[in-house]
């Protein structure tokens, strides 16, 4: 039985070799945080990390992934939602419908890994995911905040339900 190394665990699956990684993650491994948006690597809702690099899993046949390659999905971005980006996303109330946000976060996390202090141009180039609700400006603010550069100016969101660091 073929295996995949997902979020640090070796998992079995029974998908045909041409099955896109997306559908193995969602339907065989129960990891539904990674979303189907287009199936043709256009929208980025399906973005996961393969050995740390962002890939669009909807267009990647599972047979092209080696059992030793490290796959990270949104469920494995941090053990408890404590990744700097997740905290910044919450602080800035980034998601609207939220459907594209797993992909957004994974794309942003890969960017920060390569460029811990990204410029606006870096963000423009790296975040090519589609969001129909229109969260782009908050995505940008939250990436800058997670990079430790600045707290988002002007949003002043009141978080009564938790203490904000």
């Amino acid at each position, binding site marked *: 039985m073929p295996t995949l190394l997902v979020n640090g665990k070796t998992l079995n699956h029974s998908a045909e070799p041409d099955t896109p990684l997306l559908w193995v993650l969602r339907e065989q491994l129960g990891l539904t945080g990674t979303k189907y948006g287009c199936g043709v690597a*256009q929208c980025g809702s399906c973005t996961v990390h393969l050995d740390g690099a962002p890939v669009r899993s909807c267009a990647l046949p599972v047979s092209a992934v080696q059992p030793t390659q490290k796959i990270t*999905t949104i469920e494995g971005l941090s053990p408890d*939602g404590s990744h700097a980006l997740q905290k910044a996303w919450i602080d800035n*109330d980034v998601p609207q*419908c939220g*459907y594209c946000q797993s992909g957004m976060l994974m794309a942003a996390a890969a960017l920060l890994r390569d460029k811990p202090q990204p410029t606006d141009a870096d963000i423009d180039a790296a975040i090519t995911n589609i969001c129909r609700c229109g969260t782009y400006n908050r995505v940008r603010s939250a990436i800058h905040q997670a990079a430790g550069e600045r707290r988002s100016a002007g949003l002043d969101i009141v978080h009564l339900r938790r203490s904000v660091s």
Partner: protein
Amino acid sequence: MNKLIAHLQQDDAGQASDAGPASASNFTLDRRSFIGAAVAAGSLVLGFASQAATPGTSAATSAATSAATQPEINVWVVVQPDDQVIIRIARSEMGQGTLTGLAQMVAEELQCDWTRVQTEYPTPGQSLARKRAWGNFSTGGSQGIRGSQDYVRKGGAAARMMLVQAAANTWQVPVGECSVKAGVISHAGTGRKLRYGQVAAAAAALTAPADVQLKDAKDWHLAGRRLARLDTVEKTNGKQIYGADLQLPGMLNASIRACPVFGGKLKSFEAAPVMAMPGVKQVLRVGDNAVAVVADTWWRAHKGLQALKIDWDLGPNAKVQQADIQAMVAEGLSAAGAVAGHTEGEAMQAMAGAARTIEATYSYPFQNHATMETMNATALFQPAAGDKAARCEVWTPTQNGEGALAATAEAAGLPPAQCEVYKIHLGGGFGRRGATHDWVRQAVSIAKQMPGVPVKLLWSREEDMTHGMYHPITQCKLKAGLDAQGKVNALHMRIAGQSILAALFPQAVREGRDPVVFQGLNKGGGEAMIGYSFPHLLIDHAMRNPHVPPGFWRGVNLNQNAIYMECFLDEIAHATGKDPLQLRRELMQAHPKHLAVLEAAAARAGWGQAAPDVNGQKVFRGLAQTHGFGSYVAACAEVSVSAEGELKVHRIVAATDPGHAVNPQQIEAQVEGSFVYGLTAALYGECTVKDGRIVQTNFDTYPMMKLREMPKVETVLMPSGGFWGGVGEPTIAVAAPAVLNAIFAATGKRIRDLPLKHHSLKRV
């Protein structure tokens, strides 16, 4: 049933007054347990999804919630012994923040501890069983907050009064000696305190108060604040369950293809080879125009569908080309027999005597909603067995739970009482998931052919792109008659094209008049009013309906009407040598609220002073204003166009007067998001027809605006009180005209048909 469907659909049209729930002002105590399998919003959805519910037994899916949602103080408020407050939300959350906003308003009146608030969706079946106790479920027309604020606030206030009364009864003191803060009731004389959770059971047994006073907005503590949303955390860790993610034990998956030509039928298909493919369980006819492959996983179902040989009866529409549709609509621009929507004076007569006339023709294309989550529904049909009646249940992201229930009942051939719909958070709605529920009917049709087995139908992106309910196609010919001084004495605005209501709710079209066509151009009514006065005015509509099905598309007809009016006024301003703001001021003297937002946007942007260059490019501005969904909105866009014709939208200042502002930071999010929707439409949005079918099949041929193209957005929020306007849609409409007017200022090119991708802005 037909009456029910008609009623629910009328709600969808957003035209009917948003009548409150039957029992909103009369909180009768209902001691029955709330047994609806409510798919709770927020964290409770996890309990549902991970509970491995036994499908088909509502009690099983509700086991987690039925015990947890007691005691019910009234239909909107449950207070548990541990002080957890559950606020019920009938409208749907699709990203617009209505869940949080409505909870804020209930909690404001309830005066509970916001940190202990959870939300829950009541089911439409339960609502019907309780005489529509939760009122209208329809979540469209930017109605979520404004359409239910009155009765949900009364629900919160009545619950507070009952809880305080229960404490007063316990202490045997007059209720007037008691006060409440953050869910703790205090007795002034003795300092005794009781928490809401301690008196909830006693409060639930009390008679609801007859007279409920609501707070004035100036006394709000929770409403009106920039509170964080209630549903953010799950959207950052992959735990939020959407319809596409739903898993039920024993569930199968389906992928579907409907006839690519609208109106065509399914003739036959070769099931046998596909049945032999891995995981495939069934190949089924769905209605008269579609075929579905059902398999253990969706990918296997979809692979089977891609391999399926299908024979279609394409029907007469297969001959229709885009040019035919354009010609059909264009013919309406000068045809006799148009229906008047707004008349002042004698426009045609005044036009004949004009010193000068200015004329222009605009057009606006079909567009798909393109929600990020494609259409989907999971259905389970259980036939009658012994003394158990047949039952059909559906889990789906919907903008109108009651509409989905009506569609379920109709497709299942069962009374609504034997059906139920469980709402799930939407991965985008934008109007696609409200009015028709075509995907629900399909899912039920599949489930009915596989009794006892839950089947999840998920549309591929290609299916979603080619079987939408498209933004209506229209054109508009505008003609202004100027007097000798260059003042606009007469305006004729002829709209030709598609009627949404004629396709979806023909009963709402009276004497050939579709009132929704005139959005933003109405004389009065408070919903979508023109902001200008002309001595002589005629706005009329020649209905021309091509075969492509239209739908309510975020912003609806305000989108193109604002382009037509605002760009044409800009043309008049330039033709008469007037400043576009000054021309508008002259026409807006009788429309102070329209003018106020326009002045605010212009002033904030710095209208009248040169904009600073960006990267060596000169920056130009354009203005637009409109009124829609009850709110006054205006925008000033700043753009540059390089010599090579590259357009950059740098900044949009947007002013909104929604009357009352429940959560300003979420209104800002809606304004920013509306510009992504509106600018995507202006830059790229277009579906075209070839051989009767939609040409664009995915995001590679139907491109979307990306982050790198997003302008800076500055929102000026100026709630003036006294009315309730929506905020999810109106600012979409000012995005395109403000940008188009700025492009004219930058290039001298007047773009009259969209999308912009067809036009070169290169300097000649």
